[in-house]
């Protein structure tokens, strides 16, 4: 009987964990809770499926996010620091609270006058990504190959671009490089930034988000771990703002020089972390994914980017040695692009926010710092009209909603037809 009961309990746990892959991830690695603030998770080994027989990679088309960075706003640092500074001066911090306060002070100092800038870890990430790109696809980079690199006009993106390019040059100094960052590329590298729904959600989406957040309220229990006087907390601290900014700081720590010290994420219980992440994930989905609640619109913002990538690939395929096209931009662009592509199920279309996680719509797997999409093109030779493409999401093979004899390799002709039609259909409907 006991055994039977145990089995039931175990099965229940397994089932619920199975339905909660993010919860499981966070138990292994708290950093996942950071969502888009997660530092790029490097794999120890990258496993790739053998390409169709006789083909080899000849061209890479890439879009990447900047490496680990600091928060863009001073307030992200100053507000939590000020609250804790005041509490400390009144003796209202617990020993843990004092330790956290000291860490926040150091983070604030490190980020001073570097708001929004790439951190040293970010530079390291970009170097490794470029190094592996070349190591994993040496054929693309052999000889006097051309690297075409473009960036949005944001300095952390420009530095990401320059870092990757320098890494590639250090491995093959014969590469020729063109590099640029200009407003004139913004139309596809960061299309319609000011008009995007994330800045102002449709009413239905906002309402659904509000309901979801109400069902997943922030648990104030963590406050008692930091402050020793509940009455003081009640009077002196605006809980919503403090909770939000403290959690964001805790998430961001993994991107800084303090990433190896006592993690701020330890303030929270597993359940609390998971809850924060769920709230953020729902926001990301409604802002940048395609849902009936936002008319499925956000992913299509990236139709200009995807069309550009397709057109450029078409003209590169005509070349003997097309080399590599690198593009550097931002997390929301990548999220929308992945949703538009439907890569790894990110094309999920639902109004049920409670199913996002179990259906694999998980922010940190898509858009950690330095996130990147690489389309790797394969063929026999230049005269081969049967070109294959595979998509690497953060350097790991991803699936696309396309027919394939040998996934993750897809026919380029299928790829372009499917997405060009998809975009066309959407744009027609808009008219």
């Amino acid at each position, binding site marked *: 009987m006991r055994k039977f009961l145990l089995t039931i309990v175990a099965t229940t746990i397994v089932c619920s964990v199975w339905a909660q892959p993010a919860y499981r991830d966070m138990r292994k690695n708290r950093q996942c809770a950071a969502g888009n603030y997660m530092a790029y998770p490097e794999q120890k080994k990258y496993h790739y499926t053998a390409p169709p027989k006789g083909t080899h990679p000849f061209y890479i088309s890439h879009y990447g996010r900047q490496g680990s960075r600091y928060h863009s706003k001073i307030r992200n640092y100053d507000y939590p620091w000020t609250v804790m500074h005041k509490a400390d001066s009144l003796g209202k911090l617990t020993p843990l609270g004092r330790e956290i306060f000291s860490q926040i002070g150091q983070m604030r100092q490190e980020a*001073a*006058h*570097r*708001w929004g*800038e790439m951190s040293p870890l970010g*530079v390291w990430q970009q170097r490794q990504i470029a190094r592996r790109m070349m190591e994993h696809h040496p054929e693309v980079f052999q000889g006097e190959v051309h690297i075409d690199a473009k960036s949005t*006009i944001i*300095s952390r993106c*420009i*530095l990401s*671009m*320059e*870092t990757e*390019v*320098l890494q590639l*040059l*250090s*491995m*093959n*100094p*014969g*590469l020729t*490089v063109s*590099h*640029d*960052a*200009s*407003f*004139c590329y*913004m139309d596809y590298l960061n299309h319609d930034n000011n008009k995007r729904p994330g800045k102002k959600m449709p009413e239905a989406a906002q309402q659904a988000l509000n309901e979801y957040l109400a069902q997943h309220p922030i648990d104030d229990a963590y406050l008692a771990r930091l402050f020793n006087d509940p009455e003081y907390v009640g009077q002196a601290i605006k809980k919503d703002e403090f909770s939000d900014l403290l959690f964001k700081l805790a998430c961001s720590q993994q991107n800084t020089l303090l990433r190896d010290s006592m993690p701020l994420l330890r303030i929270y219980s597993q359940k609390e972390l998971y809850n924060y992440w769920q709230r953020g994930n729902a926001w990301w989905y409604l802002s940048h994914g395609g849902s009936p609640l936002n008319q499925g619109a956000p992913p299509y913002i990236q139709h200009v980017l995807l069309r550009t990538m397709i057109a450029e690939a078409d003209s590169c395929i005509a070349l003997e040695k097309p080399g590599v096209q690198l593009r550097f931009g931002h997390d929301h662009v990548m999220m929308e692009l992945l949703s538009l592509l439907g890569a790894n199920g990110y094309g999920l279309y639902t109004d049920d926010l409670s199913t996002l996680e179990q259906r694999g719509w998980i922010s940190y797997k898509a858009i950690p710092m330095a996130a990147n999409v690489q389309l790797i093109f394969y063929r026999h030779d230049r005269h081969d009209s049967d070109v294959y493409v595979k998509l690497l999401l953060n350097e790991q093979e991803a699936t696309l909603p396309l027919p394939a004899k040998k996934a993750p390799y897809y026919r380029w002709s299928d790829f372009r037809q499917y997405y060009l039609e998809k975009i066309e259909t959407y744009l027609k409907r808009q008219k």
Partner: protein
Amino acid sequence: MKRPLLLILLMLGVLTLGAQTVKECIAADRYFTASNYRVYPSPDESTLTPAPAGKKAFYISHYGRHGSRYLSSKKGYTIPYKILHDADSLGRLTTLGKQVLQQLSIIIADSHERWGDLSALGKQQHRDIARRMMQRFPEVFEGNAHIQARSTTVNRCMLSMGSALQQMMSINPRLDIDMNASLSDMWYMNHQDKQLRDSMMTKKAKAAYKRFSEDTVHNNRLLSLLFTDTTGIHQHDNDAWLNYYLIKAELIQQNTDMHKQVSLSNLFTDDDLYLFWKRENGWWYIMYGPSLLNGGHQPYTQRHLLRKMIQDADSCMRMERPGAQLRYGHETIVLPLTCLLGINGFDYQTENLDEVESHHWWASQVFPMAANLQFVFYRSGIDDPDVVFKVLLNEQEATLPLPTDMAPYYHWRDFKQYYLKKLDEYAKLRNE
């Protein structure tokens, strides 16, 4: 006998160079007049003095301006465009006037969404400068030499830095490069001094500049080329603005491929360009030079940069192989820094703007696109107590207002003593 003759010939050569006038420079290259839009004049690569006996180059400290760029602000084109367009709608343009209007619209389209961007030529300039730096001072860049590169947070500066570093990496892929562009470095890379900025154009300076320039701003010959009827064109000084902006529009095209397609060159005589240059030179002298019209302290905007360069050099000298420190910024830094250092006599001070030109204070020589200062340091070994260096202004050996027994080389200890004292005196004045 041969030697003295050679010497005399050499001296004559130097003298004629020194005696060159701005008008002669213009006759040789009319785009000398472009002032801060001037395209970087690539140096003669063979004219460096050999290293002092027993010493080797071991460290370079650099500050450079971004390379050739597009016009930064649309209004430089739209103001003349509007003046011509208005006249055209009233049927008052000549055929040439209509052509100029059309050319302006082509130029505007070319610059669309590219305002202030580094051009292809700008990238090439930085590649070339980096290549020459490595070729001329190979000892500094050997093996896994360390290169520290910093840029202001402005795109064109970051891309200039990237261009130079890419070139260096392709020559020596083992270089250990540390690159950044951060707000946290702006206190020395692009220091903004409110007190000095607010005192650039004093009443006295304004009056002097007005007197200096007012006879040169109008161009009736240009008006007769462009307009069949000049009614109303003098309103709001529109004729002067048209002259000013059309010259600038012509000059800046040299920095992009646009000059291959359009040219406003035939609108202007060398004399028109000379007058433009003269006004600009006077303006830069007041705003960023050591002019006495506003107290003579403007170059001290770069005091933090100079102090930082001295400190950096001092700490680098303690290293076996310090490599190079590269810094990328703006002409509004390079010019006052050159004046603060008194390089090539650019610390010349006067109240009389008419004297500026005749004393060879020609900003065009300091701050073309991709302008740069390189301090190249030499020693016999890490324990050498007598570190010497030379300054290259736009890759040409330059002089400092310091005594030396080995020009163009100077003793680092003399340099430090002289400039730290100078900086300390100003700090006292500012209570810093």
